[in-house]
């Protein structure tokens, strides 16, 4: 029943845009322009500041995987500029989900990504995924108050639950270039 209602809504609303070829083009163009204008009105201005804005930042927590289980290093947490780069999902879709809860166990948000311990290569006919290759990675969380517990779900199963320690919101500037394989080319 739900499926039929879905199709009906799509047809009814879409049909209003498709009454004739000429009107279709005109209305479609207007709808595209509406979407473009909507995005333009929301996109704001580029901000070059290196300072951490507490209302727009995210945390990184170090994690490792030994092939069997995940270990979280909660002694290291890093606050970084910019909002969490992942879209929140009502239902997670990708194999590695991160769910975060408040002290009462209420779900504050969740997102999913490709498994961070895997390598992937897109080439038809060849091996495409090497699982468990990456042993060290980061878990990103929005820098918001109230996150108490974090749950990792890998392949549909709970893989780890950890408690986020109290964090200090401070400006963190990483001006080091301490990896021998990296070169500053600026």
């Amino acid at each position, binding site marked *: 029943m739900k499926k039929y209602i879905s*199709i009906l809504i799509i047809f009814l609303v879409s049909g209003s845009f498709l009454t004739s070829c000429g009107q279709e083009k005109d209305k479609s163009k207007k*709808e595209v322009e509406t979407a473009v204008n909507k995005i333009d009105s929301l*996109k704001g201005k580029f901000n070059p500041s290196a300072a951490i804005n507490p209302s727009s930042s995210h945390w990184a927590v170090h994690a490792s995987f030994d092939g069997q289980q995940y270990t979280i290093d909660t002694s290291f947490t890093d606050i970084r*500029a910019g909002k969490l*780069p992942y879209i929140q999902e009502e239902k997670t879709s990708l194999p590695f989900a991160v769910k975060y809860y408040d002290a009462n166990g209420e779900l504050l948000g969740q997102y999913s990504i490709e498994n961070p311990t895997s390598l*992937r290569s897109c080439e038809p006919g060849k091996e495409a995924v090497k699982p468990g290759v990456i042993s060290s990675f980061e878990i990103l969380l929005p820098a918001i108050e109230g996150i108490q517990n974090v749950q990792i779900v890998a392949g549909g199963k709970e893989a780890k639950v950890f408690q986020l320690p109290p964090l200090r919101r401070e400006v963190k500037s990483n001006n080091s*270039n301490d990896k021998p394989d990296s070169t500053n080319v600026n």
Partner: protein
Amino acid sequence: MYSYQSLKRNLFVAFCLPLAIACKQNPETFAIHSPISPSGADAVTFTLRRIDGNVSEVKLFEFVANVNSAGDLSATTPETEIQTWNSPSFPLTFTRASGYGSNKLVTYRFQVKGNDKTYNHTVTFATRPYPVANQAIPVYVVGNQDNVLNLVFIPDTSMNSRMNLFYSSVGSQIDSTFHQEDWVRRFRGSYNFFINPVTAIARDFDSGLSHVLPSNSSNLSFAQGKVILHFQDIRDQAGSGYFSAEYYVRGTMLHESGHSLYRLADEYDASSASHWEEAEFPNNWDNKSDAEAAAPGYNKTASDVQKMGTPDWYRICNNLCPMRSSGVPLNNYDQPCKTRILHTLLQTASN
């Protein structure tokens, strides 16, 4: 019971259908500058190209600010008109021969008039060297990092002796990949492009080794896309949020950015491909009947549904969609991917 969430989703699909089959805006143009990451002494050429439509007048404006090591701006000049074209013949170019000097953030704006419409291309770039240490260098940015998608181009160490090639390749990727795909170009105001000041090492997938991330990787985690451009003959891979690509490939760039920017799944026919079904606006379906039911919503029919791989996955996009192919050639995204892209752009802008 018909949920509010379902209603919202279907209204969005219905809204996006006419968008996805939309005709081009009239007029439609796009702007670029060259070099994409100029030194303070480099002359900079601004170019406006026309895709479609009648343009009666174009004006070019600019303003310049000093940027310090903290990324703070000062001494911002008033916006100044620097060129006007009446009844223009495209492409339009204007060259600032003297360069802008070091530690500058330059913003230019093409104001385009035609068919009783007026719109703007407003683009900001930094001159090199960029004083904000170990931060991604803005080379073509259009909005706040929190409200648009961000893609960082990172030089592989194989580019160390070829940095001019790297810079020109980044300009080409913006101009000839992202501004050539119809749907991405239409929403060009949704993408910030950066260059990373620190190299990484792209590794061959068959080596079993992951990419060596740049030492400033912690400063790049805001970006949805991070690509290591290289001058090597390797089997490219993705991992840790980074993907690699030869400096000249366009199809691969669209395919991999399809994964990282919009969470589009693979559409090629291989059991080893990465398939999943997004809860909202997927481009893969895990059963045929759902794909067939979704097809009319994308102006397709059940006969457009194609099986992929084993176990069974299904797609509706045509064979040329970038999520089905990669490599050098560039093709346009098909309807389901377009809808997913628009959904992502709107979600990002409104979050």
